[in-house]
């Protein structure tokens, strides 16, 4: 790599990171909407929103399908945060509707 093409290469890689981030944001919101729909059913049938058994099932599945380079345990952490923030969103929505 020469000094001349380094900035171009960095710019190209940053552009690709942005593209992936765009997809991540869109997909995370899609996940949130599905969970909201699920939350609606749970609410109507009087089932608790927080289901740690199901969350563990999701975390195990995520670690299982993970092929790296992200560590399995890091992937679990990332998904734990995603699930918690989406769950918070759902809990907030119920709070306001009351």
């Amino acid at each position: 790599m020469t000094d001349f093409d380094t900035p171009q290469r960095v710019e190209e890689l940053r552009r690709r990171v942005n593209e992936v981030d765009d997809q991540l944001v869109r997909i995370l919101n899609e996940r949130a909407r599905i969970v909201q729909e699920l939350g609606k059913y749970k609410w109507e049938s009087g089932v608790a929103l927080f289901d740690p058994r199901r969350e563990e099932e999701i975390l195990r599945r995520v670690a299982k399908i993970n092929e790296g380079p992200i560590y399995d345990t890091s992937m679990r952490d990332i998904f734990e945060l995603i699930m918690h923030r989406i769950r918070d969103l759902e809990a907030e929505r119920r709070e306001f509707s009351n």
Partner: protein
Amino acid sequence: MDITQDVKTDVKTANGMIRPGTFRVVAGPCTVESYDQFYAGAKAVKQAGFEYVRGGAFKPRTSPYSFQGLGEEGLKIMSEISGELGLKVVTEVMDPYDIELVMEHAQIMQIGARNMANFPLLKRVGAAIAGTDHGVLLKRGLAATVEEWILAAEYVTSAGGDNVVLCERGIRTFEPATRFTLDLSAVIVAKRLTDLPVVVDPSHAAGRSDLVIPLSKAAVAAEADGLIVESHHDPQEALCDGEQALPIEALMGLKDILTPFATAMGREVI
């Protein structure tokens, strides 16, 4: 003034885990996942030149649905493999009902940070190891003062237990860059207040493997008597704490990296 005058390189445990003029390294995976995984991990510890292997059979996890360890099967795997390789086992005991079982398979019982103030457990472990070569590795609670930590050790010794080793593993602070904050000053303070050996766990303190070697060097300089580090043959796929496990290649170089520091402190890395 001789600035090394307070360095105690002569503390020891009767069972030989901690010996004068040495720096003891314990390494191994966070948890026993399978026979093959633990074999790979233990063999690496042996090849790296160390005599003590760590591994968890009972894991204190935040969620009851998370992997809880292999339990008795994990203990059997550890004792079988360590027997074959000539290693000694350090493993956590959480439940007083498991003490006898754990003692059958491991030489050193670890009391985890979350159980440091579980006084009935400390007393039972102390009474169980009285008059034996078994030892206790007592981790500092994540919000415990040095005095509370030393008093917890007294619960073990006053119940008849010998061979107690203190372990600094980081405390909770406001700093999020590391999982906990390694309190090296506590190592020095504890060693000046007691004759108990003190070892350091840089893996849990940092929560990230890139800090483990620098913190290990610092532990040697801070008068520690040894280290307990996590290592894994495949951190990317580890079931527990992959981020903080030293890969095998790093473990292989650990003895050579620490030796100059240990020599300066009048110790030999074992």
